């Protein structure tokens, strides 16, 4: 290619970065002429703009196409005139999760050392995969119906969320806690805040034996809520019969449940745990356990298999022990004052909301 040939050819090669060293030297020589430089710059600008415009148009077209395919689940079945509600898939997922809870409970092996896997002990993270299986079946049936009407209808691709659990804030600036088994198997972890925003988090430290993990939101200057975390971490054990409650995300919205401490130790006498009489389901692993005075007693880890009323919680003592193994533990600004103590339960829950959130774990 000779530079004398065509200014457009040179401009295109320049934009594509495919000029040889020799050509660049030659070009630089010619750019000394102001007239040529002006012409060349205009040509380069135009090539960039036309190519950029084209690329963006293709991107927009692709977006429209993706949108159409991903929202195809809401399509109307012509013959019967039934509109599938927008929340159909979510409802199906929740229904399926209930079905899984009541029927096929899978046992996760977590602590082989004490044979929990063989026993009546179930971690309560929600495994989205199972739900999705049921969802996929329903979707398949649905699609068959729809395809009778419209053969070209694409199916929305499944989300790649693998597990969901619940987390709660340790400090207002981004440290939080969840059950270790929720995140153990994933590639990346996000939390979803009250207004739906996702924040990526990284693992700070964990204790697999106790089933506790401490994570931190990646984003700088992140805050869960407006002030300090409203509850305090008590290292001492709660008394038998103490009234407790929890907030968690067994589905896409926050769920409140209450109960009492039914034994001071946990599964098979585990001293790091409590046994609670509290209804809990998949997705609630990692939920905070709080007494009526706003003390944080621990976090949910598992439910008993035969007796669903038994729920196990890791005590906050185990959590604090893990916390102190973090190198910069002293610089963590842990909440010092309990701001829930004198509030009604409703106000406590409202106050808690920004500090309790859904944890979503992704795995490819």
């Amino acid at each position, binding site marked *: 290619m000779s530079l004398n040939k065509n200014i*457009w*050819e040179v401009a295109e090669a320049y934009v594509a970065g495919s000029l040889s060293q020799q050509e660049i030297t030659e070009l630089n020589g010619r750019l000394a002429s102001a007239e040529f430089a002006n012409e060349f710059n205009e040509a380069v600008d135009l090539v960039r*703009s*036309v190519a950029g415009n084209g690329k963006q148009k*293709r991107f927009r077209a692709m*977006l429209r196409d993706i*949108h159409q395919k*991903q929202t195809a689940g809401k399509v109307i079945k012509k013959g019967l005139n039934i509109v599938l509600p927008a929340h159909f898939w979510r409802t199906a997922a929740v229904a399926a999760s209930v079905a899984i809870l009541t029927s096929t409970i899978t046992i996760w092996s977590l602590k082989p050392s004490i044979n929990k896997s063989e026993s009546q002990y179930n971690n309560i993270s929600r495994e989205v995969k199972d739900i999705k299986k049921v969802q996929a079946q329903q979707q398949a049936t649905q699609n068959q119906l729809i395809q009778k009407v419209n053969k070209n209808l694409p199916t929305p691709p499944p989300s790649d969320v693998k597990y969901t659990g619940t987390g709660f804030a340790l400090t207002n600036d981004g440290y939080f806690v969840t059950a270790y088994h929720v995140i153990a198997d994933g590639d990346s972890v996000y939390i979803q805040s009250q207004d739906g925003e996702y924040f990526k988090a990284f*693992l700070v430290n964990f204790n697999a034996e106790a089933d506790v993990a401490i994570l931190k939101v990646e984003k*700088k200057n992140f805050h869960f809520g407006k002030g300090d975390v409203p509850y305090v971490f008590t290292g001492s054990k709660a008394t038998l019969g103490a009234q407790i409650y929890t907030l968690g995300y067994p589905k896409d919205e926050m769920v409140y449940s209450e109960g009492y401490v039914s034994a001071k130790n946990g599964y098979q006498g585990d001293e790091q745990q409590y046994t609670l009489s509290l209804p809990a389901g998949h997705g609630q692993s990692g939920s905070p356990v709080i007494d009526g005075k706003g003390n944080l007693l621990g976090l949910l880890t598992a439910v008993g298999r035969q007796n669903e009323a038994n729920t196990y919680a890791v005590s906050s003592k185990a959590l604090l022990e893990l916390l102190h193994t973090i190198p910069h533990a002293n610089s963590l600004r842990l909440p010092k004052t309990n701001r829930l103590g004198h509030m009604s339960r409703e106000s406590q829950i409202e106050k808690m909301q920004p500090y309790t959130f859904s944890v979503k774990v992704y795995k490819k």
Partner: protein
Amino acid sequence: MHSPLNSEQQLLAALAAGQRGATEQLYQQHYHVINGWLIKNGGSSVDAADLFQEAMVVLFGKAQDKDFRLTCSIGTYLFAISKHLWYKKLQRSHREPVYLPDNAGDEDEGGIAYDDDINVHEEREAHYEQLDAALDQVGEPCRSLLKAYYHHDKSMQDIAADFGYTNPDNAKTQKYKCLARLRKLFYTMQAK
């Protein structure tokens, strides 16, 4: 968990290249958030689709720069841009004075950065609009030829066949002539 696999930077690079998989993933992960938010704030699902796609185009534009690094997660960015675009749209329609609620964007890192990104985006859109107008006036076969090459990403080989040139080199020469005509039109329009 120990090594985050879904690196957001990789996702951005794939998005910048216009890869469908990455774009679908972002759509899947974030569209419903904006849709939910907008419906709570008086918009419709149709508005949400427009808004989200516009925010994706803003991100796509930003990601074209290889040195571009997000200071927040992609989700946060898309959400903040969507909010800003929406409030801007409301302000322009003069319905009523609208104030950004304190959670629009992030107080700490400033809504200003998002506004800058949106301004750059709008300038570029205006620029592309002028370019399209010039392209419409450039006359045939130039209009179709340039569109086939730049908008539809067709190869010179295919274009030569479609437009009846004996070989790709002839089509190329014609393309350069067309670019020269487009330049004249475009810069005359800009000078006005």
